[in-house]
């Protein structure tokens, strides 16, 4: 081991370090172990107290090295026997010398610190174990993964992640908005906005009305209109309007933060992004999914791997060929044109149906109007994707590229539908606001008529007591918006569940039982069992979440509704997938699409908060309902709070900070910073590629094979 002849004190440290390197390089034999142990024991007579400070330093270093080794032990590719031996050795060494190091120099403190850090690590480990055990639905998802592979399981993992986000949003809206108003605000029936009007009182408890979220459901904490604009409620002096506003802003901010954080994490994990340089190697070494535990899925996987090999080989050969590129281009342009026609057609259809329903809104009941619009939207959502699928046969893309085009088109379809819906909603809001002006005028007339019969207006007579139910009410457009969104979500959910039951379950039952008496083999031939449509389901989930974000400000009950919906969906879809679906024939890895779905979610988040922000900033709130009634704009509540609740200097600082002269340069600075970071990252990537190429050529040309291996060990 090459130890020098030196003082015994050095020998201890040196021997220990030599022992360390010996253990790391060779696998220990039992006999050798005992010898080494004995030798170290002999040296023990050298007491650590007699070591000078530099020797103590060296000893401390050795102890630290051992500790690091213990930490890193998991990541070493050695058999457990060797790891356990090294672990015991290192632990003994550390115990023996650690305490000694502390002698005479605040030893008790040192020992205490060591004890605390051990307890902290143990606590961290236990907490990690506990957290892993707490993850909901883990067994279910694992079972699905073993039957269907990781791409189907990725949908359920995404669903679970969405459930987590919605749970947090639910806690925010429930705890900070709904509960304070319910407990500390004025109870039902005391003021006009909280009471069902006399005209509707007889039908307020009907199931049909409640299902449509009218009646008692409308005049409750579920919707915006119920909330009182009193500045502080209860003995806690809870600032209700401020809380409402901040929770609305906070839900959006939290969602942004979570989505961007997940995207960043995914981007990190997916590596440098060398997509095609190791195509064949990756297909060879990483295509088998070790989680597959089901023979049927395994057979499917074998078939798909074979297909992917053959495809890759063919592509490689064809990429040298270059013919018919003009025909392909023409066909692709034609396909895109057809798709644009479809999208325009569907947009016009929705607009037409909504306008028609508004025209006949006096004749048809509310429910029929809803059914028209929602039915059209759902049918479009079902049939247009199939049409896009057929059109994409013209394009002749690689399946993964074709899938992304398909997803993009369906995304555009849903987006178009959603925005048409919003435009229709805006028309309704404007109508309601005009109505409001008329009603305001009527109320002044009505109030004057109340005093007519008794005394003149100028005398100090006691005020006339009026039942809150009799007061004429404004048409509260915010509650209307909230109700529309809730109805849309409910009808969308119903459509999804019914499609699932009919499209998957009924189909599976028919194929299974009619097969005995049918001319051709139903299971292998035409209908057969359905496959689980991952991308369609993920898109549906993303769009539903967009609707929640859009409507949550006006209907605080939406996150609660969504939590319930996701919970039911999880169980229903897990059951449906195991019972009615078969594994996909082409199995695509989920990870490549992961960031694609996150990017779509981010776009939807942005697009769905735009309408809400627009209405908050431009439209004045209703005069007699909601927490902002009486204000000029909803965000005035912030101004008010700053003026009355904070000290004067705070208001001054805030007004300086929001001065355009300060904000604009700040934004400019941020844009410049983004540009700078973008360009440095690009240059790093280029430098990386250059270095790689250089290293390849250098190694290839100049060094013999044996040395090359050690070069790689150093550089990679």
């Amino acid at each position, binding site marked *: 081991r090459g130890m020098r002849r030196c003082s015994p004190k050095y020998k201890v440290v040196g021997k220990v370090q030599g022992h360390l390197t010996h253990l790391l390089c060779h696998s220990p034999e039992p006999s050798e172990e005992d010898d080494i142990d004995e030798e170290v024991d002999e040296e023990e007579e050298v007491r650590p107290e007699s070591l000078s400070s530099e020797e103590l330093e060296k000893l401390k270093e050795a102890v630290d090295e051992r500790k690091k080794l*213990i930490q890193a*032990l*998991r*990541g*070493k*590719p050695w*058999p*457990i*026997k060797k*790891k*356990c031996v090294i*672990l*015991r050795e290192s632990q003994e060494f550390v115990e023996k010398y650690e305490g000694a190091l502390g002698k005479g120099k605040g030893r008790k403190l040192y020992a205490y610190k060591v004890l605390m850090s051990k307890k902290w690590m143990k606590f961290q480990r236990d907490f990690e*174990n506990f957290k892993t055990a707490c993850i909901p639905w883990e067994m279910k998802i694992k079972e699905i993964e*073993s039957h269907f592979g*990781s791409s189907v399981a990725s949908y359920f993992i995404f669903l679970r992640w969405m459930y987590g986000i919605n749970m947090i949003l639910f806690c925010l809206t429930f705890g900070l908005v709904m509960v304070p108003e319910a407990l500390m605000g004025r109870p039902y029936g005391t003021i006009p906005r909280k009471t069902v009007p006399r005209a509707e009182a007889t039908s307020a408890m009907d199931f049909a009305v409640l299902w449509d979220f009218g009646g008692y459901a409308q005049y409750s904490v579920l919707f915006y209109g119920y909330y009182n604009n009193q500045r502080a409620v209860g003995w806690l002096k809870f600032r209700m309007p401020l809380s409402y506003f901040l929770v609305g802003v906070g839900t959006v901010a939290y969602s942004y933060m979570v989505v961007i954080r997940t995207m960043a994490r995914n981007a990190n*994990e*997916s*590596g*440098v992004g*060398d997509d095609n340089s*190791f*195509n*064949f*190697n990756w297909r*060879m*070494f*990483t*295509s*088998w*999914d*070790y*989680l*597959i*535990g*089901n*023979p049927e*899925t*395994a*057979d499917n996987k*074998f*078939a798909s*791997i*074979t297909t992917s*090999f*053959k495809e*890759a*080989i063919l592509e*490689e050969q064809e990429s040298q060929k270059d013919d018919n590129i003009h025909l392909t281009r023409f066909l692709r342009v034609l396909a895109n044109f057809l798709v644009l026609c479809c999208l325009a057609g569907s947009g016009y259809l929705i607009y037409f149906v909504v306008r028609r329903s508004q025209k006949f809104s006096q004749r048809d009941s509310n429910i029929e109007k809803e059914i028209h619009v929602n039915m059209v939207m759902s049918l479009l959502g079902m049939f247009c994707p199939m049409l896009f699928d057929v059109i994409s046969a013209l394009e002749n893309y690689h399946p993964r590229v074709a899938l992304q085009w398909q997803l993009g088109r369906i995304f555009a379809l849903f987006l178009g539908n959603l925005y048409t819906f919003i435009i229709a909603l805006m028309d309704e809001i404007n109508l309601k606001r005009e109505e409001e002006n008329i009603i305001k005028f009527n109320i002044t007339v009505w109030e004057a008529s109340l005093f007519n019969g008794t005394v003149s207006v100028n005398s100090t007579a006691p005020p006339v007591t009026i039942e809150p139910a009799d007061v004429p009410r404004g048409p509260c457009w915010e509650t209307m918006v909230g109700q529309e969104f809730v109805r849309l979500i409910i009808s969308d959910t119903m459509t999804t569940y019914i499609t699932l039951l009919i499209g998957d379950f009924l189909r599976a039952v028919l194929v299974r039982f009619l097969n005995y008496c049918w001319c051709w083999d139903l299971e292998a031939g035409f209908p057969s069992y359905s496959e689980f449509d991952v991308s369609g389901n993920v898109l549906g989930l993303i769009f539903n979440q967009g609707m929640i974000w859009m409507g949550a400000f006006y209907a605080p009950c939406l996150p609660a509704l969504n939590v319930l919906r996701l919970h039911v969906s999880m169980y229903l879809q897990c059951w449906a997938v195991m019972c009615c679906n078969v594994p996909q024939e082409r199995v695509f*890895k989920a*990870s*490549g699409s992961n960031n694609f779905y996150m990017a779509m979610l981010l776009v939807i988040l942005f697009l769905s908060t735009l309408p809400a922000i627009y209405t908050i900033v431009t439209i004045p709130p209703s005069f007699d309902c909601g927490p902002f009634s009486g204000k000029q704009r909803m965000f005035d509540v912030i101004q008010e709070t700053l003026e009355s609740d904070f000290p004067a200097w705070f208001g001054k600082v805030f007004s300086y900070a929001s001065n355009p002269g300060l904000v604009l340069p700040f934004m400019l600075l941020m844009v410049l910073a983004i540009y700078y970071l973008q360009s440095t990252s690009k240059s790093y990537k280029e430098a990386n590629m250059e270095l790689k190429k250089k290293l*390849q050529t250098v*190694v*290839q040309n100049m060094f013999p*094979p044996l040395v*090359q291996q050690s070069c*790689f*060990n150093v550089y*990679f």
Partner: protein
Amino acid sequence: MGTTASQLGKDLLSEYQVTVFCFVFSAYKRFSELLGKDEKDVLHERVPMDRILTLPELKSNPFRKRICYVFSTSDSKNGSLTFEDFLDLLSAFSDSATMEIKSHYAFRIFDFDDDGTLDCGDLEKLVNCLTGETDETKLTAEEMRQLISNILEESDIDKDGTVNLSEFQHVISRSPDFVSSFKIVL
């Protein structure tokens, strides 16, 4: 449960837990289920390969035999595993195992002739494992030759006709799918 729990003492449990990525106690339970009625000593008993291969997680895996051979520490190289070998297996395939560990063991699994490099024979056997047993899914000889030459072209940097451990790790570390697919969870 009483007899099985008592064999894994607290010290031993925490010692194992520091050295592996998986959960030791659940591994212990699964392993003890594999033992026969007369095999009581869970910690030292050696379980033959065909019993290990009855585990549902390994049953459908085309590399199941190679996995057993790689993790086995038996002198006769018959693929039998003790409890510690089983722990090694689960640790390497665990969710939290690092890329280095997984790529190290993946290389050893794919190295069918155990010579430390992946040459054409290893790659051919690998492809045959992946494409299944039936004739309709096997690749033709021409396709096989084309495939292997493409693979070597991509990853064999020193052009010696084989893929060694460093080249393998270089390729694998850039794959986005490897860590998530190279996973076995009990």
